[in-house]
C-alpha cells in the first residue's frame, strides 16, 4: 500500500485508499452473509409455518392418512410425492443420455460452425420461461397424447415437458465438463490412432465423471422445483398413477394451486410439502459439494 501523495486528502479518504482491499473483502463477506441468512430465514419460516399441523397430526399423518383432503383433516401427501418423484425420474432418465450425447456430438463430432450454433440453441432453450414451455405443452403435446390415449394431460406430458426443460442444464454442464478434459489426453489418443468412440468411452467419460454427476444433480433439482409448466400439462388430479397416461399432481403444483385459499391447518400442510421440497434440494446440494470435494 503506497502512502497518499496529496496532502489535501481527508483522513477518511486516505484511510480508504490504504485499506481498499480489506474494504472490498468485507463488503463481499457481508453480501455472502446476507445471502446465507436469507436462505436460513426461509428455512426457519417454513419450519415455523408448518409446525402447527405437524404438532397437531404428526409427521405420520402425511403418509398414512386416507387421502389429501385438508378441509376434512386428511393430509396424505403420498400421491403427490409419487407425482413429483415419477416426473423427476422419468425426465432425468430421458434428459441425461440425451444431454450427454448432445454435448459429445458438439465437442467431438460436429464441425466448428455447427457446434457453435448448436451451443447457442441449447443456451436459448435454457432461457425460455417455463410458462412458455407449459403453454406449448398444453396446445401441442397434450392433444397429441390425447389422440394416443385420453385424457392427454398426464404423467407422460409432464415427463416430456420436464425433459425438454432440464435438457439444456445437463447438456451445458456436460459441455463444460468435456471442455476441462486436458488436451494432452486427447492428443495422446489421437496420436496413437485410437477411435473417437473408444476415446470417448474410455477416456472422456471417466475423466468427466464427476462433472457429469453434478450435471445430473442440477437437472434433478430443476426437475423437482419446476412448477408452472408441469401444472399446465399434468392434469393435477391427486392420485397415485397406474400408467403414464394418468393425470398426476406434483408437490409444487399442489402448493401453487391451493395456496390462494388455504387456511389454518390446510395452509400449514402446504408449508410441510414446501419444507419437504427444500429438504430434498438441500440433500442434492450437499451431494454436489461432496462430489466436488472428491476431485
Amino acid at each position: 500500500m503506497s502512502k497518499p501523495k496529496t496532502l489535501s486528502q481527508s483522513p477518511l479518504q486516505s484511510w480508504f485508499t490504504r485499506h481498499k482491499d480489506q474494504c472490498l473483502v468485507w463488503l463481499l463477506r457481508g453480501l455472502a452473509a446476507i445471502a446465507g441468512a436469507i436462505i436460513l430465514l426461509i428455512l426457519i419460516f417454513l419450519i415455523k409455518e408448518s409446525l402447527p399441523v405437524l404438532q397437531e397430526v404428526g409427521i405420520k399423518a402425511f403418509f398414512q392418512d386416507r387421502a389429501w383432503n385438508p378441509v376434512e383433516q386428511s393430509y396424505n401427501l403420498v400421491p403427490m410425492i409419487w407425482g413429483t418423484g415419477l416426473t423427476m425420474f422419468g425426465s432425468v432418465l430421458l434428459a441425461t443420455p440425451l444431454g450427454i450425447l448432445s454435448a459429445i456430438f458438439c465437442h467431438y463430432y460436429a464441425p466448428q460452425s455447427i457446434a457453435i450454433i448448436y451451443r447457442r440453441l441449447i443456451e436459448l432453450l435454457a432461457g425460455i420461461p417455463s410458462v412458455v414451455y407449459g403453454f406449448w405443452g398444453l396446445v401441442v403435446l397434450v392433444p397429441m397424447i390425447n389422440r394416443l390415449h385420453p385424457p392427454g394431460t398426464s404423467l407422460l406430458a409432464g415427463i416430456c415437458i420436464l425433459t425438454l426443460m432440464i435438457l439444456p442444464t445437463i447438456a451445458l454442464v456436460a459441455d463444460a465438463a468435456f471442455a476441462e478434459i486436458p488436451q494432452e489426453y486427447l492428443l495422446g489418443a489421437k496420436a496413437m490412432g485410437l477411435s473417437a468412440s473408444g476415446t470417448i468411452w474410455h477416456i472422456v467419460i471417466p475423466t468427466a465423471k464427476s462433472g457429469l454427476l453434478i450435471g445430473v444433480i442440477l437437472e434433478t433439482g430443476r426437475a423437482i422445483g419446476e412448477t408452472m409448466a408441469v401444472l399446465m400439462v399434468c392434469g393435477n388430479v391427486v392420485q397415485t398413477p397406474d400408467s403414464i397416461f394418468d393425470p398426476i399432481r406434483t408437490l409444487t403444483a399442489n402448493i401453487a394451486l391451493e395456496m390462494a385459499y388455504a387456511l389454518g391447518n390446510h395452509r400449514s400442510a402446504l408449508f410441510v410439502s414446501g419444507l419437504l421440497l427444500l429438504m430434498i434440494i438441500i440433500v442434492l446440494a450437499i451431494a454436489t459439494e461432496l462430489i466436488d470435494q472428491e476431485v
Partner: protein
Amino acid sequence: MTKSITNNSQSSIQDLQPLIQIQQLSLSYKNKPAFQDVTFSIPQNSITAIVGPSGCGKSSFLTCLNRLSDLIPNCQVSGHIQLGTVNLLSPKINTTALRRRIGMIFQKPNPFPMSIKKNIVFPLKEHGFANAQEREQIVEEVLTDVGLWSEVKNRLEDSAMSLSGGQKQRLCLARALALKPEILLMDEPCSALDPISSGIVEDLIVRLRHKYHYTIIIVTHNLAQAKRIADYAGLFWVEEGCGRLIEFGTATQFFNAPEHELTKAYIQGTKG
C-alpha cells in the same frame, strides 16, 4: 526394416535408404506461417535431432509427420512428405493406420487416466489385438523394455497417475512401443523430467533404437543430448517471423563443422 546398424560410425549410416523425404513443407496457423519451405530426407534406422529456439516451429513440424496437424483448427500444411511409397499428406491416407506406424511421445508425459496396465491394453484392443493372453504378453514385454516392469509389476492395476514424472514418460514410451511402430516422434521427451529420469529416458531411446531399429525424430532443447544420441541433426530458426530449416546434416558435421553462421553460434551457445 531391412538394415540393422550396430554402431554410429558414419560410413554405415550414410548409405542408408531415405525413409522420409520432406519437400518444401510449410505450415501456417490462420495464414500466419509457423515454418516454411523445409526440405530434407530422414534415413531409415537413424536418430535425427531437431534443435532450435522455442517458437521456431519444431513441434509444428513433428505434427505434420503423423498428421496430428489435421486436428488443429485453422492449420494448413503444404508441400510433400513421402514415407516409403506413401504420400503422407494425401487426404486419402488412413490416419489411424499411419499413426499406428508412427508413434509419438510428448513433452509433458500424458498417460491416460486409467490403470498402468490398461494404458497399454486399451490401445492394443483398439487396434484389434483380440487375444487377451497376447496382450498380457505385450504388456510385460514393453514394460520390461522401458525398465518399468520390475518397478510396477505388483501394481499394474494402480492408476497411471500415481507414477512419478519419469515413470509416466516411460509408460508413454511403452504404450507407443506396444503398437510396434516403425517411426517414433519425440517432442522434447526429457525436458519436463528431472536430470536422472531424463538420463534414463535418453539411454532407453538409444538402446531401443538398436534393439528394434526404429527411426527416431527427436526435438530437443538439450544440445549435449542431441550430440550424444543423434546421427543427424537439423537446426530450425525464426527468420523474418517464420521458422526455417537453417542447416541439416550428419551429427558429426553439424556439431564439428557447421556450415552456417547461425548453427555455429547456436552450438557455441552465443545465440538462441
